[in-house]
């Protein structure tokens, strides 16, 4: 028995070897070019800013790229406390670091921990498929729990901009059609065209079998930007516009005799458009090389009609100079915008915040915070109607409140019942204007102002009822110590 089996075993082994090395090296596959990304994440509790919520674990897939790195979505690794890469077949794991991340573009590059820098050596890197358009067939790659690859064919039915991870960030998206079954609960699935990475799956609707795919041109640009000395993000113009399908508006705006054009309805303060001198009421006719139609689209050579925002967000870098042809008071004018990216922390109300906690300060049981969008979103699914209205109003009308010289909105978020806060227990969501007679434009101002009580008393002023409260400085300091003993780990976070 033993003698007859031996040659058979050798043959079998030989075949296996041929399959795993020979042709596979030339042709990347789900088996050879993907790794699992296991993420433990923990977000801050914006309502109790000194603490984090319970950690949770997710796993997803990453695509291995040239240079021993892995691309995946930022959403997967946001607020990560522990990250690891896992070989889908052997289950071998290694700790990973984030080499680059962009929450707006929803992309992250991961690298194995330096102790295991050759972890990806056995993987076949994927190239980026720079072009894909309507009608193309793509494959969505998944891996079963047992390591078996699964590829699902889908077809691109539409190319336009769509939301990625943050509801305010729109980028190039492939809408693909085809039935998809989720395997092993994976988050972020690589999408491939002819063996090259064409994108990352953002979401799938089982009702209409349509999925949104983060498109590879954005991945390409992200990787390019990462090569720069300083990562400056994807630029944006910083305008809102209205369509000009309304003939009466066209006539009023002097657009008779022109083809397209959109009416500028908002210019974000400090944005590329603002610096370029664009104003509300201008009509945007041409951006860069492209004529803008009355719906706000332009003719993309590959995709056809697509939204103008892609000209800047997907087609240019920060620092690029782009001509803007407009009509102002019926007269043509050409402006030049030097493109830039406004960072979240440069907004009055931070639109997003990951991997760091909100800035706050407690004094004697009064909890102060800087207003952020995640704070408002802490009200859950119905936050738009249930979050405190005044704070919502400020978020929606930031320019109005920036005019007062504020760079952040400091507000009293809640009051803990302490000896210092007697009579103030029910106050919440009040905008702080002054403390100890000093203007409060951010949490650091507050921290400074609290160092100078007036006759031993902190005077805190608000923009609405009850307008001012007073707290004994010495007593508040004692209360602060008690709060630390009671388990509030830190009294303030100023950075």
């Amino acid at each position, binding site marked *: 028995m033993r003698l007859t089996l031996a040659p058979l075993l050798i043959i079998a082994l030989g075949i296996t070897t041929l399959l795993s090395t020979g042709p596979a090296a030339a042709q990347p596959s789900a088996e050879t070019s993907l790794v699992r990304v296991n993420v433990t994440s923990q977000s801050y509790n914006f309502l109790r800013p000194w603490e984090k919520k319970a950690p949770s674990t997710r796993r997803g897939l990453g695509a291995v790229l040239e240079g021993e790195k892995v691309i995946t979505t930022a959403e997967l690794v946001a607020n990560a406390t522990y990250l690891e890469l896992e070989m889908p077949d052997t289950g071998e794991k290694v700790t990973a670091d984030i080499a680059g991340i962009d929450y707006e573009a929803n992309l992250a590059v991961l690298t194995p921990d330096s102790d295991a820098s050759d972890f990806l050596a056995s993987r076949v890197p994927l190239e980026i498929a720079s072009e894909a358009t309507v009608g193309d067939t793509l494959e969505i790659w998944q891996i079963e729990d047992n390591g078996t690859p699964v590829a699902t064919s889908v077809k691109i039915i539409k190319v336009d901009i769509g939301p990625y991870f943050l509801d305010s960030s729109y980028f190039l998206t492939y809408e693909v059609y085809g039935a998809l079954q989720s395997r092993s609960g994976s988050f972020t699935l690589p999408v491939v065209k002819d063996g090259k990475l064409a994108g990352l799956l953002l979401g799938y609707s089982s009702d209409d079998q349509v999925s949104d795919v983060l498109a590879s041109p954005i991945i390409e640009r992200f990787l390019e930007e990462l090569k720069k000395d300083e990562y400056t993000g994807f630029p944006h113009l910083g305008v*809102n*516009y*209205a369509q000009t*399908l*309304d*003939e*009466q*508006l066209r*006539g*009023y705006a002097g657009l008779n005799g022109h083809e397209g054009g959109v*009416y*500028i*309805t*908002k210019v974000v303060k400090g944005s590329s458009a603002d610096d370029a001198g664009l104003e*509300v*009421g201008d009509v945007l006719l041409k951006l860069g090389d492209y004529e803008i139609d009355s719906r706000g689209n332009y003719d993309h050579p590959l995709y056809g009609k697509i939204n103008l925002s892609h000209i800047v967000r997907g087609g240019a870098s920060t620092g690029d100079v782009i001509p803007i042809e407009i009509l102002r008071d019926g007269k043509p004018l050409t402006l030049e915008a030097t493109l830039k990216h406004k960072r979240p922390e440069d907004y009055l109300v931070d639109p997003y915040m990951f991997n760091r906690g909100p800035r706050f300060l407690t004094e004697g049981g009064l909890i102060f915070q800087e207003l952020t969008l995640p704070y408002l979103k802490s009200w859950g699914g119905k936050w738009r*109607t*249930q979050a*405190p*209205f*005044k704070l*919502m*109003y400020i978020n*929606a*009308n930031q320019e109005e409140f920036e005019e007062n010289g504020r760079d952040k909105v400091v507000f009293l978020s809640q009051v803990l019942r302490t000896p*210092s*806060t*007697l*009579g*103030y227990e*029910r*106050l*919440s969501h009040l905008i702080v204007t002054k403390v100890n007679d000093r203007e409060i434009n951010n949490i650091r101002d507050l921290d400074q102002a609290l160092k100078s009580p*007036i*006759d031993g*008393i*902190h*005077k805190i002023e608000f923009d*609405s*009822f*009850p*307008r*001012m*409260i*007073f*707290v*004994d400085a010495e*007593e508040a300091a004692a209360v602060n110590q008690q709060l630390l003993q009671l388990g509030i780990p830190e009294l303030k976070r100023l950075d």
Partner: protein
Amino acid sequence: MKTLKLISCQRQSLAPVPLQTPNFSWRTPVSTPKLAPFKSYPLRQMFDQPSRFVALLFCSVFIALGVTSPSTAPAQPLSISDYSAIVRVENDALVPDYRTPWNAGRTSGGSGSGFLVGENQFLTNAHVVSDSRILYIKKVGDPKPYKARILHIAHDCDLAMLEVEDYSAFEGVKPLELGGIPQLNTTVIAVGYPVGGERISVTRGVVSRIDFRPYSHSAVDYHLTIQVDAAINPGNSGGPVLQDEKVVGVAFQGYSGAVAQNVGYMIPVPVIERFLKDVEDGSYDHYVDLALSEFNILNPAQRRALKLPNDGIGVMVANVNADGSASDALQVGDVLLEINGHPIFSNGFVDINGEQVNMNEIVERKFAGDVINLKILRDQQEKEIELTLKRFLPYLIQGKQYDKKPRYLVFAGLVFQPLDLNLYAAHSIDDMHVRYLFNYFVAEELYKDIEEPVVLTSVLPAAINTHLRGYAGSVVEEVNGYPIKKLSDLYDALNDDEARDYHVFKIAGQGRPIVLDASLVESAHDQILAEYKVPNDYSNE
């Protein structure tokens, strides 16, 4: 009504009674279950309306203010020998529809109760006779309806006085007398014509609580109320609650069974007497108020900072509403020490005849033109201040309106209406600027700049406005260069006889204007009015 949740009520259980600390609760969400005025079936659909801002306007608790209490011994249940003074009030109402403000409205109606208080003077609730088209009064044991009309109606305290055209049938009927404030745990009976049958009904219970509560009819007023556990049901509204054969209240509102059991409310005698006194001169002049909000001084650091002795006296002025009674005399940071000689405790209460009541109680029973004396502390100096009381109108947009025709303007199919609660409730508006104007109209004194916000509420679709339908539900700030501060400004801006190519409407929060080609407007305008059966394009009465 989504937005209202923000400043007011989650519908919860009875939980905290907001008025235990009245001046504080004004600024914090008050959980107020839905109060239904007890008119009759069909019950009027009530809306949840917060009273956060306006609560301050009418705050007071009126226990024992010059009202003689009845004997301290528990009162005996009474037997009324003669029910003839207690009548049924039937109202056919015409309720305007704020979605089609040019229409007459929908017919509605129901019945409540009432009682004779003087010669041809029948007292009932305002909500029983609101939006009335035809009114009848029916007498016990007499099938004949007697045509009636409203002499006076006070929506802010939910009382009305009626008269019948032919009083002869009531000659000889003895009007009911008013009593005082009944003691807790004494027996009362409620008499009226509630659901459950046609004939007069009597229910019995005890006085459960005397408190300062919102009056749901206007949705913005707070006055003294008395809670009883006698069954008070739809149809009881306007009927008397009696003790020792005297009226101790007018049944007027309660909770649905789903919220609370055996909780009915009546309007107590001090409120009734104030109403009767107010109308003595032939017209109703409404409540007056200080139009300020005060903040308790409970924190020792507050006392020291405001240089107050540690005597438990004083509240801090936290807001003084412009154009209110106190706007010229008081400022934020003043400390109120005394009101008409009564020291004000640091929780905002005063002592009147041994009872602790809210300081606004002093104001509550005053009339327009009456004077209030205040002692205040400002910059460490005590000052005596005299305030002449007047009505404060800006809060009215946050209250329900009755007996008024909706005002509107239609222009090329765009329907404009002034903002008030009726409008806000009829159109589900989620525009943030409209919500801001509505909710903060008083609190942030927006009324100083805008008399009444004008809202583009809907668009009657036609070729000329086909691109404008998305703008419904937003506030008009400026038209043809004119700022719009009230509905008539809009009319004037569109009819100024200037020659122009375009009418341009600036909309709050919208970067693009609404533009109408003037040459197209004229024919389109009339066509739209005809097509949508809008008889008049402007009504501003």
